[in-house]
């Protein structure tokens, strides 16, 4: 004796987003922790030593956060004006920061007051960094100069005046203590060597340069400016390798994942994009609420920290493997399920007599109603708000099932104003979806047939019908346009394809399908 076969819900694959290893990796973060700062977060820098605290520069303060705390473990507030570019030294002991008031301050991470103050710039200092020998500081300023300072004497060593606009980014080499690179709003990147007192290499980015990044090998340089991210080969004398244009607003900062395989870029268009560094394809994308000014990635990609223009710092921590498991475990430990599996794990003893219990079939509500031939009620259930919006395929499957049973007309008829408007609302939303159209178009025709006598009696229904009409007119317009395009393509393909003289030329392919293998995936 067969049991009731439930309505088959067609499974549609999600189009667009593919599940790759990258997606799984970058999705494996917890929900973000959000911390409100006093102003736009301009810089985030992770300490190179454990426990990898990070310095967040926002407005007139620099906060240092621990890896898991939401409260700052340390704050530096002795700035007269907006602070910029708080960076750790490679031993994690010292922190340098620029300021709008042109003074560069050096802090001991454990102390509160500035150890050294470097005065000499005439305008805001937006770039500060330590050289790899740990005794010098590089600064870049809006007065078009970049300078090197000696920490012990707190004296200026050299000043370079080669840029012709604000210097907004700079980076020192981790391998060579004399090399550093600056990027400026004059569209150029300059590589300086402290030993020769002038730039040794100049590259033209083409846009005001916002951020710079050196690969760990320091053979490649990445620069961001405007909507472009460009990669330069320093060993080939600054030859441009790739130019990426994946953002639609200015790219503000760059970051490299811990293994050097992925490059992250953040932009004012509120996206963070992850690139594969071998083929420079975007492999993942993060969305944020506001324009992003700064981005930091903890060692081993343990957390992603993003600072935004509205002063919100968003921190995402990676899920540990136990946590990933725990979540699924938690779902299993729901009380309802516990009741459900009660006694299931009991192992029968040797002489026990097993009395088998018939397995109860669990049916969805609409299936129960279909089983009882309550067709109108089943359609009502399928049109419930949650189902209608979240799982339209269920509603469509129920309509299809009713059509198969020959009772769709009965189910659609006899609805009041509210029910009809709900139904029409669903149709307006899903009618032109190519996955649903074969089912919904006959249903719509049926509704129009049934209710044509009452058109004009209810303003609510009339509005919906008007929307439906507009939708269909628009769709017909699109179809005509597409046909025109198809015709153009056909002409182009016929003229461009050489005519083969072998007997195989019989393979005619209308609509511009390629002559070779046209593979069609199962969708």
């Amino acid at each position: 004796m067969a049991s009731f076969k439930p309505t088959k819900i067609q499974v549609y694959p999600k189009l667009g987003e593919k599940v790759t290893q990258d997606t799984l990796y970058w999705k494996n973060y917890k929900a973000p922790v959000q911390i409100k700062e006093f102003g736009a977060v301009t810089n985030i820098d992770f300490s190179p030593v454990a426990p990898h605290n990070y310095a967040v520069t926002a407005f007139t303060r620099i906060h240092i956060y621990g890896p898991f705390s939401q409260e700052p473990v340390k704050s530096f507030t002795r700035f007269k004006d907006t602070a910029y570019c708080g960076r750790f030294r490679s031993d994690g002991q010292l922190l340098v920061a620029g300021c709008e008031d042109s003074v560069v301050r050096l802090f001991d991470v454990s102390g509160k007051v500035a150890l050294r103050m470097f005065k000499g710039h005439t305008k805001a200092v937006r770039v500060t960094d330590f050289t790899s020998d740990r005794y010098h500081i590089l600064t870049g300023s809006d007065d078009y100069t970049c300078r090197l300072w000696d920490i012990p004497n707190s004296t200026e060593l050299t000043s370079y005046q080669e840029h012709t606009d604000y210097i907004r980014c700079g980076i020192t080499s981790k391998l060579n203590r004399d090399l550093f690179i600056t990027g400026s709003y004059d569209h150029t990147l300059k590589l300086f060597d402290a030993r020769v007192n002038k730039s040794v290499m100049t590259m033209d980015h083409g846009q005001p340069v916002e951020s710079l990044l050196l690969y760990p090998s320091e053979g490649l340089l990445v620069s961001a400016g405007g909507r472009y991210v460009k990669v330069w080969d320093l060993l080939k004398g600054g030859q441009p390798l790739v130019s990426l244009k994946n953002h639609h607003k200015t790219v503000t900062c760059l970051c490299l994942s811990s293994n050097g395989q992925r490059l992250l870029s953040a932009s004012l268009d509120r996206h963070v994009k992850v690139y594969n560094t071998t083929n420079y394809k975007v492999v993942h994308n993060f969305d944020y609420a506001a324009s992003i000014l700064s981005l930091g990635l903890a060692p081993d990609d343990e957390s992603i920290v993003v600072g935004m223009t509205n002063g919100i710092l968003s921190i995402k921590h990676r899920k540990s493997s136990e946590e990933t498991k725990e979540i699924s475990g938690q779902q299993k430990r729901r009380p309802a399920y516990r009741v459900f599996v009660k006694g299931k794990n009991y192992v029968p003893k040797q002489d026990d007599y097993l009395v088998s219990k018939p397995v109860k079939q669990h049916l969805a509500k609409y299936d129960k109603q279909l089983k009882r031939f309550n067709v109108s009620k089943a359609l009502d259930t399928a049109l419930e708000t949650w189902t209608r919006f979240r799982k339209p395929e269920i509603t469509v499957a129920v309509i299809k099932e009713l059509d198969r049973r020959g009772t769709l007309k009965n189910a659609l008829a006899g609805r009041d104003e509210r029910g009809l408007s709900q139904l029409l609302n669903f149709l307006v939303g899903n009618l032109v979806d190519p996955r649903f159209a074969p089912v919904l178009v006959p249903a719509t025709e049926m509704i129009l047939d049934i209710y044509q006598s009452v058109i004009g009696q209810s303003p609510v229904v009339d509005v919906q019908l008007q929307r439906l009409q507009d939708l269909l007119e628009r769709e017909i317009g699109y179809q005509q346009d597409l046909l025109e395009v198809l015709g153009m393509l056909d002409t182009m393909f016929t003229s461009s394809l050489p005519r083969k003289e072998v007997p195989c030329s019989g393979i005619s392919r209308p609509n511009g399908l390629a002559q070779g293998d046209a593979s069609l995936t199962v969708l």
Partner: protein
Amino acid sequence: MVEHGDIRVVHRGGSKINFREPVLSHDSRLLLCASGECVKVFSSSTEECVHDLQGHTDLVTGVLLNPSNHLQAYSCSADGTVRLWDFTDGILIKVQLHCHHVSVQPLSVSVFSLLMCMCVTLTRLLSSSQGEYIASAKGLHLEVYFFKKQKFSLKEDNKKGAKNTFTCLSCHPKDDCIATGHEDGKIRLWRNFNHKREYTYSTLHWHHSAVSSVRFTPEGTNLLSGGVESVLVQWRYNQETQKDFLPRLGAAITHIAVSPDGELFCTAHSDNKLTVIQSCVKVSAVIQGLVKGESVRTDLMVDPRSKALVLNGKPGHLQFYSLQRDKQLYNLDIVQQEYIHESGLQQFEVVKAAFDTRGNWLATVEERKQKDSTLELNLKLWAYDEQTQSFVLNTTVSGPHEARITAMCFCHTADSQTTMLVSASQDGHFKAWQLESNHYFYEGPFWSCDFVGAYHSLVPECCCFSADGSLLAISFQEVVTVWSPASWELLTTLSQPPGAIRDLCFGRQSCSKYLLGTTAKNLLCCWNLLTCTLEWSTSMDVSLLLSDPLSENMAAFCSHAGCTDLFVFKPSEPRPLFSHKAICSGKVTRAVFAPREEMLESCEESSQWLNRSQLYFLTQYMVNIPLVIDDSVAVTPFYLLLGKHRQQQQEKQDRSFSAERNQLPQGSVAIKELLHTPAHVLPSASFLCSMFVRSLLISEKKSEEEEMESDKEEESECEMEASTMGQGQTAEAQETAAPALTKAQARELRRVKKLDHSWLSSLLDS
């Protein structure tokens, strides 16, 4: 020691078991039902067939228990005889010739104190238990014949044009009450009809369409009814508001039977199924015969694993049918949708199915065409699951083509790594589907489209892979195209002689260089693929062409003047191996070569082609000849030993009828009994053994009658010896060809013959 008779066409089962109402025996252990020309006895608990009561020469039209002896049953047949059987042992007791006129066909038989009734056109006939009257219904009239008085007729008024034609009736065993079922789904209970014009009736209504069967339980407390809804309804007599239901019985109920003790109900269903139901409304056993839908739209196929015949079964199902045991193995639900029992509803139908060579994959196509809406097509691929021993759905492709699929076939390559499926459709394209290992969205392997091909926007009709899978032939109306599946290159086109291709087939084994096709212009063509030329062609109207997968032979069915001829040939040889004129009347629609379980070793040229496989075919008139088989009769040593007994016994039995049927050679009844009785019914082996040994010991101390019988046997044996010694042409032509036995062997043989008979018959008597 092996000898061959002629090749014959044998009806090989698949008969209807739901043709007439089944009968449950008194102790509810056995179930009798009319099945074609025999009566089948099933065990109601194990669902096994216990006996075939063979003897009728035409359709059996009714079975009934003998009221005076509950171990006997009557059966009536369209051959005009009524036979009395002992159904527990499967023995024919009596034959009564009632109608010498052939055209009179008793449709149902009703017995009261050995009263036989034969009716020609009446729909239903029943007698009351007290034997006072017989009720019959026809059209809009219910007629009650009183034995003591005269005929009395009740008429159903038909004023409003309501559909209240009688469909079935049942008499209450105690009260004067007749329940009738009607076309409009109502049940009427007629009472008080022994007085003129004062009859009353009450109406029960639950069924939405015609009631096909009503039946009172033996005590008269309940009334059972069933119809197309496939729900068994149990009404309480006199409390008609209380009903019990047994829903989802699978198919429309055609007959209901109740065992005499009221313990079991049995329902016959339109899909050739008997369901045994306990009186607490619980299904206890299902006996399923070969399901015959309106048409076999999928071709006949043989499952490479189970060697079962696969064809359309219930709506939306494929049935796996064992040819050896004449029993359905299982149903595979292809459509997986709730079946709505309503007439006029367009359901999904399985239209194409194909197995790959190893039986690992099954491809099915289902379609549903509603008027004024688009065609719904689904291509499903099923993987064989070793653990559950059944097919599991792997991939569903909704809308694989834009129009009907005309042909579908798997590639025959030996290595299963690169399985390929090709489907051709009326939309002018053919598609190749291939198994892909992984995908970002699906887990595990799945099927996806690999290639879409077309040829001059013609419609592809048939497709066929060569034996090694290196070539694919697709016919586009008048042109045969040959493709290479490896590179999807069009290798060549064959279009001579002109004529739309109807059927396409590659040769096998030594003939694999040939491609055969039949055209609409009644030509059978054979192309040589090495030279790409037409090798030969002959003018014959081939309705069906198929190749034997195990040999190079091809079979062609030619319809010719209302009947069909069969030709078996090798593509490389000009002369057919075998031809049979008028193998059956009507057109052969489907056929298949099924591999034999054991290979035969035949030397005769005309029957060699049947050594490895048997040919099964379905004819146009499925109702009459459902399934037929070509079979060569092998004469085995066993036959030489035991065949003699059968002949003798047949002579004894041939009192009133002659055995016109060509029966298969079998042993003595006793041996047959032993071999055919299911093991679970036999006594224990130790019991049998001791009996056997005892019979060996006392073989010389038999009763007088047995002595005489054995003497007779010896005489006949001597005759046979004489004939074999003298090499004379005796009547038994078959035995002459057997090698002559030595004296010692013959003596041994005689001894064995004497022995086996006595101990087994004693066992049977006990």
